[in-house]
């Protein structure tokens, strides 16, 4: 569907508020592509924030270990904190693969979301 922008009585449409994730020209494909980009960006942001939290948590746990002294309970909590931080980071990094495997099992293509979205678009 081709549109002649200058001949539309309402002009070229709304202008985007943010240039980063919104498409410059609105078409069906560019909107779906930018939705997929947004989801990828959110996953990336969560991963980076999680990595930063892991660093902070790890050092807090190390500090706890150092300051616990001969208190064996304090050492144990510090070790648990470290272990849980590591497990969380590993799960976060491997989450992408897990999502792919789960999507393959249930039959929804979660990694190539563009095709999945375009499949449910009604015909105009």
């Amino acid at each position, binding site marked *: *569907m081709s*549109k*002649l*922008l*200058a*001949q*539309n*009585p*309402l*002009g*070229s*449409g*709304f*202008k*985007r*508020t*943010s240039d*980063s*994730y*919104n*498409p410059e020209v*609105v*078409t*069906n494909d*560019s*909107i*779906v592509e*930018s*939705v997929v980009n*947004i989801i990828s960006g959110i996953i990336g942001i969560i991963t980076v924030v999680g990595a930063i939290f892991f660093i902070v948590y790890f050092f807090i746990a190390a500090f706890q270990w150092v300051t616990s002294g001969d208190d064996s309970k304090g050492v144990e909590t510090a070790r648990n904190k470290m272990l849980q931080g590591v497990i969380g980071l590993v799960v976060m990094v491997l989450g992408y693969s897990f999502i792919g495997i789960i999507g393959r099992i249930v039959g929804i293509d979660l990694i190539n979301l563009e095709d999945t*979205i375009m499949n*449910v*678009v*009604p*015909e*105009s």
Partner: protein
Amino acid sequence: MNRRTKLKNTLNKSLFFLSGFFSVMLTKVQLVAAQTTDVFGEIAPPPGVDQYNQEADIGVIVFASRIINFGAIVAGIWTLINIITAGWIYLTANDSSAHEKVGNKILNSVIGLAIIALSYTIAGIISLLIFGDATFILNPEIESVGTNVRSGMPPWAP
């Protein structure tokens, strides 16, 4: 001077007056609208408004886009203020519920700002999923009776 010449005189006078009037009107119209294509010319937009009519737009959507952009800036400043007040709550709180309160405040502000920044794409994907056309909301078309929007020609055009 008989009655006939008197009538002729009056007619000449009024014709002269009318022609002068129309010539003044035409010059004014031509001054206002330089690119006159029709008999009566175009209605020229007043200064300021004509800047919204750059690409044969009627400018409503351009104006709305400016307002939305302004709202996004205001929302960004509001988010900044919200984060600063959240930090202030952290500094001054004595109870242990401050952690939760501050976290909620910052998270809500950031989520709201993200929704505003991504509203364009959200509107596009909603109109794509509901109407089957991503431009339905973002680049709307208003069709009048018999007017072909795509060609832009009125129904009386050949």
